[in-house]
C-alpha cells in the first residue's frame, strides 16, 4: 500500500493558484485555489471535463495567460523559486529552457512556412550559445532521438511533409530541445490516430524518464493516465477534486465525481449501484454554486456541501484504513470529513 | 417562449431584443449609439425632406439668381434666410442637401436591396442545388469580382444609355443607378449565402424537412435562409455605405443623377466647380453630409459584425 514513489525534490510547486478572466460581467474564475507539486522524473496526470481548468493551469505555470486573463492569486515555484511574478523577459528565458510545453494538435503547432530544422535550430540557439552548425547537429540528434527516420534529410522538410504522428514527434523534440526540467503536455495525443497515441505516450514517457523531467500530462483519456502517470489529479470547475497515486485513484476513487469519471461507484456507499454516468453538466464558471462545486450533480450531497467548500485533505484515518487509501491521496469532499465532525 | 421561468418569456420581440446580448453590446458602445442616432436622423430628414426643408430648391418660381452664392449665415455677407448659404443659382443649400440625401439614400437603399435579392437567390440556389448550377453561378461571380463595382456600374450605365437612346437622363437616372448598384454588389451575398447554405444543408433539420416532402424553395426560404441572415445583415449594412458612395461617385463623374435632380454626389460635383473661387460651402456641406452618413453606416456595420461575431474580437 505504501508504494507511493518518493520524489524528494519537487521540481514544480503550485500553491493556491487562482486564475481569473475579466469579462463584461465581472471576473470569471477559471482556476480557483489549485495546489500540487511534481517531483523530479514524476508524471502527474491531470484529468477532467473540458473547461475544468486543466489547460489553463498549464498556461498559468508557463506564464502564457493572455489578457483578459491573469493570475489573481497563489504562487508557482520552480525548484523552490517563485516564477509567477517574474518580469516578462526573465520568464521568456525560462520558457523552452527550463519549462517545455507540448500542444494538443501537432498539425497546427508547427509554423507551416518554416522548415522543421529551422524551427529546432531557432529554439536551440535562442537558449544557448551554440553555433549554427552545432545547433543543426543537435537538431538532427534530437530528431533521431524522437524516432524520425533519416533525420539528416528530414530536417530540411516542411511540417506539411510529415504525418500527424511524426509531427507530434517533432513537437516533442522542440519541447525537449533545451532539456527542460519540467514539461507540460497538453492533451498530446488527442488529435492523433489511436494507433499512434500509444507510441507517442511511450516516447514521451521514455524521454522524460531518462532525463528526469517532471511532467504534467493533461488529458481526458483515462487510458493514457493509467499508462503513463505516477499520480493523477482530478479537476472539476477549476478546483482539484481528488489527487493521489494513479492506481489508487483509478481503483478506489473517493470523490463522487472522480468515481463517476472512473465509471465505478464509491465502495463506501451501501446503496451500491453501477454509476454509469454523471447527471447534469459542469456548471458554467460564471455560475459555480456555493460550497462544493459538484453538489448539484452529486447523488450523495448533504446540507454542508451546499454551504461550505471542501478543501483537499487526507481522508480521516478510520476511513483511510477501511478504504485502503494510500498515503498522499487527498480528496476535497465532505463525505470524508463529516464523520470526524460527528464524532 | 415556453420557458416561463425567464422574465423575457411571453413578451414581444421588442422586449426580447432589449434583453438580448446584442442590445447590451449596443448600449455599451457609445460610438455605435451615436452612429445609429445620426443614421436615423438622416433617414428621417430624407424621408420628410419635403416637409422639413425651408425651401423647395427645385421650384424655379422660388429660386432667385439674386440670392446666388450667399455664404452661410454666420459668415460675413450671410443671409439669415439661408442657414448654410446658397449655391450658384440661389438655391438654399440646407434644402438642397435634404433633397439630395433623399435621392442618395433611396438609390443606395434600393440598389442594396436589389443586390441582396439577386445575391441571396443565386446563393441559395447555388448552395442548395450544387453541381453545374453552382459552378456556373460561382464562375460568373468570380469573373465579376475581379472588376470593381464602379467600373461595372459605369459600363452598365453606358450600355443602357446607348440602348435606350431616346430616354433622357432625368427619367432614366434612378433606375439605371439602382440596377447598376444591384448588379455590382450581388456577389458578396451570393458567396456568403452559398457557403452557409452548404453548411445548413447538411444539418438534420433540412433532411427532416426534405423527408416530410417540403418543396425545395420552401425549405430554402423558410428554413435555410433564416439561418444565414446574420452575415447577410452585416453585408447589407456595410454595402449600404458602399452603395451610397458608388451613387455619389457616379453622379460626381457625371453619369449619375443630373443637376436638375441632384443627389449628394451631384451637389458635390457642382460645388467642386466653385472651390477655387472661394465658395467653399457649396461643396463642403454636401461633402460633409455624405462623409458623416457613410461613416455612421460603416460604424454601425463594424459594430454589428463584432456584436454578431464575438469570436472575432
Amino acid at each position: 500500500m505504501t508504494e507511493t514513489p518518493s520524489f524528494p525534490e519537487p521540481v514544480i510547486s503550485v500553491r493556491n493558484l487562482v486564475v481569473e478572466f475579466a469579462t463584461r460581467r465581472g471576473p470569471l474564475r477559471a482556476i480557483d485555489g489549485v495546489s500540487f507539486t511534481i517531483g523530479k522524473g514524476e508524471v502527474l496526470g491531470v484529468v477532467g471535463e473540458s473547461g475544468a481548468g486543466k489547460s489553463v493551469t498549464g498556461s498559468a505555470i508557463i506564464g502564457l495567460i493572455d489578457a483578459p486573463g491573469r493570475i489573481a492569486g497563489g504562487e508557482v515555484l520552480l525548484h523552490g523559486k517563485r516564477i509567477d511574478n517574474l518580469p516578462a523577459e526573465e520568464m521568456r528565458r525560462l520558457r523552452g529552457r527550463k519549462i517545455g510545453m507540448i500542444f494538443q494538435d501537432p498539425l497546427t503547432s508547427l509554423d507551416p512556412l518554416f522548415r522543421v530544422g529551422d524551427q529546432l535550430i531557432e529554439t536551440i540557439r535562442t537558449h544557448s550559445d551554440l553555433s549554427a552548425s552545432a545547433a543543426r547537429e543537435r537538431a538532427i540528434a534530437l530528431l533521431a532521438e524522437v524516432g524520425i527516420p533519416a533525420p539528416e534529410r528530414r530536417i530540411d522538410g516542411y511540417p506539411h511533409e510529415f504525418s500527424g504522428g511524426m509531427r507530434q514527434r517533432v513537437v516533442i523534440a522542440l519541447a525537449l530541445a533545451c532539456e527542460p526540467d519540467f514539461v507540460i503536455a497538453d492533451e498530446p495525443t488527442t488529435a492523433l490516430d489511436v494507433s499512434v497515441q500509444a507510441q507517442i505516450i511511450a516516447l514521451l514517457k521514455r524521454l522524460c524518464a531518462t532525463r528526469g523531467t517532471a511532467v504534467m500530462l493533461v488529458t481526458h483519456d483515462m487510458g493514457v493516465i493509467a499508462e503513463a502517470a505516477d499520480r493523477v489529479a482530478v479537476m472539476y470547475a477549476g478546483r482539484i477534486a481528488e489527487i493521489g497515486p494513479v492506481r489508487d485513484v483509478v481503483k478506489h476513487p473517493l470523490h463522487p465525481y472522480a468515481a463517476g469519471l472512473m465509471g465505478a461507484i464509491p465502495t463506501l456507499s451501501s446503496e451500491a449501484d453501477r454509476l454509469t454516468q454523471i447527471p447534469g453538466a459542469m456548471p458554467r464558471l460564471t455560475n459555480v454554486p456555493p460550497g462544493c462545486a459538484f453538489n448539484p450533480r452529486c447523488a450523495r450531497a448533504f446540507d454542508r456541501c451546499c454551504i461550505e467548500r471542501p478543501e483537499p485533505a487526507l481522508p480521516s484515518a478510520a476511513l483511510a484504513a477501511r478504504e485502503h487509501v494510500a498515503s498522499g491521496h487527498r480528496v476535497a469532499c465532505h463525505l470524508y470529513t463529516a464523520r470526524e465532525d460527528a464524532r | 417562449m415556453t420557458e416561463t421561468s425567464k422574465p423575457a418569456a411571453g413578451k414581444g420581440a421588442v422586449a426580447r431584443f432589449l434583453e438580448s446580448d446584442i442590445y447590451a453590446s449596443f448600449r455599451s458602445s457609445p460610438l455605435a449609439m451615436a452612429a445609429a442616432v445620426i443614421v436615423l436622423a438622416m433617414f428621417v430628414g430624407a424621408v420628410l425632406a419635403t416637409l422639413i426643408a425651408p425651401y423647395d430648391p427645385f421650384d424655379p418660381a422660388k429660386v432667385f439668381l439674386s440670392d446666388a452664392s450667399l455664404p452661410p449665415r454666420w459668415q460675413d455677407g450671410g443671409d439669415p434666410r439661408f442657414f448654410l448659404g446658397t449655391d450658384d443659382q440661389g438655391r438654399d443649400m440646407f434644402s438642397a442637401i435634404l433633397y439630395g440625401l433623399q435621392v442618395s439614400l433611396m438609390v443606395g437603399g434600393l440598389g442594396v436591396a436589389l443586390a441582396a435579392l439577386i445575391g441571396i437567390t443565386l446563393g441559395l440556389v447555388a448552395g442548395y442545388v450544387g453541381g453545374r448550377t453552382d459552378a456556373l453561378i460561382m464562375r460568373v461571380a468570380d469573373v465579376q469580382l475581379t472588376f470593381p463595382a464602379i467600373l461595372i456600374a459605369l459600363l452598365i450605365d453606358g450600355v443602357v444609355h446607348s440602348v435606350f437612346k431616346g430616354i433622357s437622363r432625368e427619367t432614366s437616372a434612378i433606375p439605371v443607378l439602382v440596377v447598376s448598384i444591384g448588379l455590382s454588389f450581388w456577389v458578396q451575398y451570393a458567396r456568403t449565402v452559398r457557403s452557409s447554405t452548404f453548411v445548413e444543408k447538411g444539418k438534420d433539420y433540412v433532411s427532416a424537412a426534405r423527408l416530410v416532402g417540403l418543396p425545395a424553395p420552401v425549405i430554402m426560404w423558410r428554413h435555410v435562409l433564416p439561418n444565414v441572415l446574420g452575415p447577410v445583415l452585416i453585408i447589407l449594412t456595410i454595402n449600404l455605405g458602399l452603395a451610397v458612395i458608388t451613387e455619389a461617385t457616379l453622379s460626381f463623374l457625371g453619369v449619375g443623377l443630373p443637376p436638375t435632380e441632384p443627389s449628394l454626389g451631384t451637389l458635390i460635383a457642382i460645388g467642386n466647380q466653385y472651390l477655387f473661387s472661394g465658395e467653399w460651402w457649396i461643396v463642403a456641406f454636401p461633402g460633409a453630409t455624405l462623409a458623416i452618413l457613410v461613416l455612421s453606416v460603416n460604424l454601425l456595420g463594424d459594430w454589428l459584425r463584432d456584436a454578431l461575431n464575438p469570436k472575432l474580437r
Partner: protein
Amino acid sequence: MLAFIIRRMMQSAGVLLAVTLIAFVMFRFVGDPVNQMVGIDTPQAEVAKIRESLGLNDPVIVQYGRFVWKALHFEFGISYQFRQPVTKLLAERMPATLELAFTAAGFALVVGILMGVYSALRRDSVVAKVFEAVSLVGVSLPTFLIGILLIYLFAVILGWLPSNGRGQVVRIGSWWTTGFLTSSGLRSLILPAITLGLFQMTLIMRLVRAEMLEVLRTDYIKFARARGLTARAINFGHALKNTLIPVITIAGLQLGSIIAFAIITETVFNWPGMGILFLQAVQNVDIPIMAAYLVMIGLIFVVINLVVDLLYGLVDPRLRMTMRR
C-alpha cells in the same frame, strides 16, 4: 509546377474570353458601328457597302472570332468621338495612368503594411486607435471627396502642390512619357497618388491587422512563445511571414482595381490618363473605346492574378508541393 502554370493560364484565357465576349456584344449589338460612321444623308447603298466591308454580314461567330483576333493585335477600331484609332488613343494615355497607379499602389502597400503590423502588435495603444479611426474614415470617404479635400487644403489654401495635370513630362522611347524625371511632374503626382492609394491603404492596413491578429492566435505562435523565442523572432519572423502570404493575393488584386479606380482620381485632378478617356467614352457612348478599355482591364487583371498565384506558390511551401503534383 508546369502543369499548374498551364492550368492557371487556361483558366485565365477562359476569363479573358468571357470578357472579350462581353466587349464584343457591346461593340456589335449595343452601338451599331455603321450608324456611328455614316451621316443621316448617306445613301442606303453606301451603308450596305460599309456594312459588308466591316464584315457585319458574316455569321456572328465569325465576327466574334475576328474581334478576338483583332483584340489580340490590339486593334479595336476607330473612336466615334475622336475619329482616331482606339489603340493610339489608349497608348497615349497609358503612361499617365500606369505611373499614377503604381505610385499609388506602392504608397498603399508600404504604408498599409506598416500601419497594419503596428496596430496588430500594439493594438491597445493610442496610435493604433488613431490608425483605426483613420482607416474607418479612409473607407468611408469617397475617393473623389478625398481628392477635393486634398486639393482644397494643399492647392487652394496652402498653395503647395499643383491640383491638376501631370506637370512637365519627358518622352522616353517612341511613346512612353514620364513625370518621374521632372520636379513639377513629381509634385503633380503627390496628391493624385495619395488620393488614389488612400482607400487601398486602409484596406491593406485593416487586412494586415486582422490577418496578423488571427496569426498571433494560432497554435504555432503559442508554441513559439512556449519555447521562449524572443518577441522579435515571433512577431517579425513567424507572424509577419504568415500574415503577408494572404496579403499578397489581396494586394495584387488591389493593384488591378487601383487602375480602374483611377477613373475617379483622374477626373478630380484632370489627370490625362486612360480613365478620363473611358469616362468620356461612357458619357458619349463611344463603344469602341469602352470595349477596348474593358478588354485591357480584363487583361491586366488576369495577368496580375496569374503573377500573384505564381508568387504565392513560390512563398508558401504547402502550395509549392501541390503545384509540383
